[in-house]
Each structure stands twice: as structure tokens, then as C-alpha cells.
């Protein structure tokens, strides 16, 4: 049995794949941003003195981390309209991915906040800073430096998760690859190139993120 490789037929459509790649990246970035905002609030709830707030944070993290992402995507896409919340495809996907990312960000930020030695916060108190000033000027910047490596990893991970958007026909990389596959029937060529594009994109992101990390490192 012989397989006749023909990559040219796929390369002719490379723009479609690259457009999909960019869309996937934007979906991941938007979800990470919203997820970070959500995660920050939930992390503060998780370390607060208030048992109710801690409970809410724990409930959210447990619920979201133990639900498969695809199920979340279907709930957002097929379920929300029944509640008369009408979102576009991409919006409902971002909604699902943000909620999912937020649960992981909660844990990342909580750990980043807890890693700050109490003495440093006491030094802030000792010069007369209010709790809010300590949060903005000391806790938040140190936490971001602590968690920068994790944030990069989650961005890459979320980027790969955007392939699930194909399930609700969002024209990102995986969906467009499937489309080319249907048109050309060059199965291996399409999916190998798609895989290669994911690998290259992720590798590039990791490379850039490492450089950013090094710039921000506290040493």
C-alpha cells in the first residue's frame, strides 16, 4: 500500500489555517484576560477572613475545575439562549473558556499571594500604608512577578484548548483544518500541517514569554 503525499494542495489554503491560528490566539488571550480578572477576585475571596467568601471561591474552583471544558462550551453555547442570554458563537466560547481559566487563575493567584512573606506586608503597615495601599503597591506587583511563569503556561494551554471551539463551528485553526480536509481529503497532510502550526505557535509563545519573564524577574 502506498500513500501519495501531496502537501501543495494544503499549502494553497495556508491562509485559511493562519487566519484560524490567529483567531484561536485571540480567543485564548481574551479568555485569559477575563479569567485573570475573575481569578483575582476569587483569589482574594479565597484568602479572605470571611468564611462565606472563602466558601464561594472554593465552590467555584471545585465546580469549574471538575467540569470538562467541552461540556462548559456546550452549556454556554446551547444553554444560555434558553435563559434569553444571546451571545455570538465567539462570545459564548470566550464566556466558557474565561470561567474555566478563572478557576485555574484563582489557584495560581492564591498561591502567588500566599507566597509573599508576611514580614514584607508588615513593613508596609509599619510605614503607615493602609490595607488597600498595601494591596496595590506591594501585594499585587509581587504576586504578578511570582505568577508570571504560570500565566505563560496557562496562555499556551488555553490556546490549545481553543481547538474545542471547532465543536461549535468557530472558524479557528482546527475547524478550518477540518474544512480543508473535507474539501481535499488529504487527511495526513492537513492534520500534520495543523499539528505543526500548533507546535510552532506554542513554541514561539513560550520563547517570547521566557524573555518577558527574564526581564521582569526579581532574581
Amino acid at each position: 500500500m502506498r500513500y501519495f503525499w501531496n502537501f501543495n494542495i494544503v499549502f494553497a489554503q495556508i491562509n485559511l489555517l493562519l487566519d484560524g491560528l490567529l483567531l484561536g490566539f485571540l480567543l485564548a488571550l481574551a479568555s485569559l484576560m477575563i479569567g485573570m480578572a475573575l481569578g483575582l477576585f476569587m483569589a482574594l475571596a479565597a484568602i479572605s477572613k470571611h468564611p462565606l467568601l472563602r466558601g464561594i471561591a472554593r465552590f467555584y474552583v471545585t465546580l469549574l475545575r471538575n467540569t470538562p471544558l467541552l461540556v462548559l462550551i456546550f452549556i454556554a453555547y446551547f444553554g444560555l439562549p434558553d435563559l434569553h442570554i444571546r451571545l455570538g458563537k465567539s462570545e459564548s466560547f470566550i464566556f466558557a473558556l474565561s470561567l474555566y481559566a478563572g478557576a485555574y487563575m484563582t489557584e495560581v493567584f492564591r498561591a502567588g499571594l500566599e507566597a509573599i512573606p508576611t514580614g514584607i506586608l508588615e513593613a508596609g503597615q509599619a510605614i503607615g500604608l493602609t490595607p488597600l495601599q498595601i494591596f496595590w503597591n506591594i501585594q499585587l506587583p509581587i504576586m504578578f512577578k511570582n505568577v508570571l511563569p504560570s500565566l505563560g503556561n496557562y496562555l499556551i494551554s488555553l490556546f490549545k484548548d481553543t481547538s474545542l471551539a471547532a465543536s461549535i463551528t468557530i472558524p479557528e485553526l482546527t475547524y478550518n483544518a477540518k474544512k480543508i480536509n473535507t474539501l481535499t481529503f488529504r487527511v495526513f497532510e492537513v492534520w500534520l500541517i495543523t499539528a505543526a502550526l500548533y507546535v510552532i505557535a506554542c513554541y514561539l509563545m513560550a520563547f517570547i514569554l521566557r524573555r518577558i519573564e527574564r526581564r521582569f524577574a526579581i532574581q
Partner: protein
Amino acid sequence: MEDSLLRIRRLGKWFGSLKVFEGVDLDVNAGEVVSIIGASGSGKTTLLRCINLLETFQAGSILLDGNPVGYHEENSKRKRFPERIIARQRLLTGMVFQQFNLFPHMTALGNVSLGLRKVKKLPRAEAEKEASRWLERVGLGDRTHSRPSQLSGGQQQRVAIARAIAMNPKILLFDEPTSALDPELVGEVLNVIKQLAADGATMLIVTHEMRFAYEVSDKVVFMDNGKIASMGTPTEIFEERKSDRLKEFLSTFNN
């Protein structure tokens, strides 16, 4: 009798049922340097942290410049001041920690100017000018743009001293300021503290450096087992050694 700058009366502190100290009376007058010595666990550090309101206390009162800090009486009930007031009361004291506790994400200049900008509300340029002036005073005029991680322990502690004194506190509190330092770096920090003392700063110093305490102090307090066991001039404490516990404690130090 002159009114003391710091007046502590019948101060008591418990962690749950564990007593740290009780019945502590202490006065520090303006311009005075008072050292607190004593074994680990005798309550010295906790006492200092109470004065800076980093710890709660369950009995007694602390008066700074004549005003009660931390707690006040309301309808004959003891109430803690709200956090905003506490933050302002902390400005009366400056604290230098054993572990320096510099803000790791800021330069030396950032560490010293943060309080001037955010608490004293000085414009950035003015705050930084003031901060560099203090860094020069502690001999670090050339390290203003260094991060804590680029400084030696002794340099970090001198930045911490500049950070505390830049806020112009009435009294400086030192919590074992040289205990975390390599031996060869102790001298530079003690010299800075001596210089501040010579310039008339009011200071309360918890220390294990007996020779330094002897040289710098107007008054030495010996804490033992949650009480002030002896108090006196350096000569009385270090040379006359009136009590057995004090003799025993001081005999563990060679100098």
C-alpha cells in the same frame, strides 16, 4: 516630671491562653536610647511589635506623645481603633525588622520613597529627593537604584533604616537589627544606629549585641519570662548585675 514620649502601663499580651508578658511598665523620653535585652522567648520582640500595633494586646495601655494608640475606652469598654486610624498611629513609630523586609520589587529609592509618596502625599520628585537624602545618610548614596537582591544584608538593613526614619517617626523601634547578618556586616549597621543616636533620635532597640547596648543606651531593660526583671543604666545592668537571673543571662555572652 517630664512627660515621656512613650509611656507603657500594665501592658499584657496573650496568645490564647499562652501569656507572653504582663504588667509591663516602660517609659522612653524624647532623645533617649533604650535597649531591651533578654533570652529568646522572653517577650522582647512581641513588646516591640505591640508598640507598632503589629500585635494586639489584651491589657494595659500604650501612650505615644500623650495619646493612647491601638485601643481606647468607649462607654468603659476597651475598643480597638479602626484600621485607618491605626495606620496613622503607626506613623508615630518607625520599625526596623530583623529580616529587613524590603519590598523586593522596588529599588532602594523606591523602598524609601513609597511611604513619602503614598502616606505623606509628597509629589514623586520631592519624595525621591528626600529618599536619596536619607540613603546618603546611611551611606548608600551610590546604591539608590539597586534592588534588594543586589545588596548585601548590611546594605539592605541600612535601606530599611532609611525607609523607617524617612517617615520622620517620633521613635524608632529596632527588632534585633543585626541578628540576621553575617558577622562582618554587623558593624556597618550598628554604626548607622549609633550615628542616629548621636543625632538625638529616640530609639527602642531589642538586641543581642551586649557591647553595643552598653555603648549606645541611656537605659537598659532586661526582660525575663514575660516581665521586666531589671531596668537601669548600662553600668547598673552590665557591671553591677544585681539579680541572679541577670548574672546568669549575661554570663552566656563573652563580651
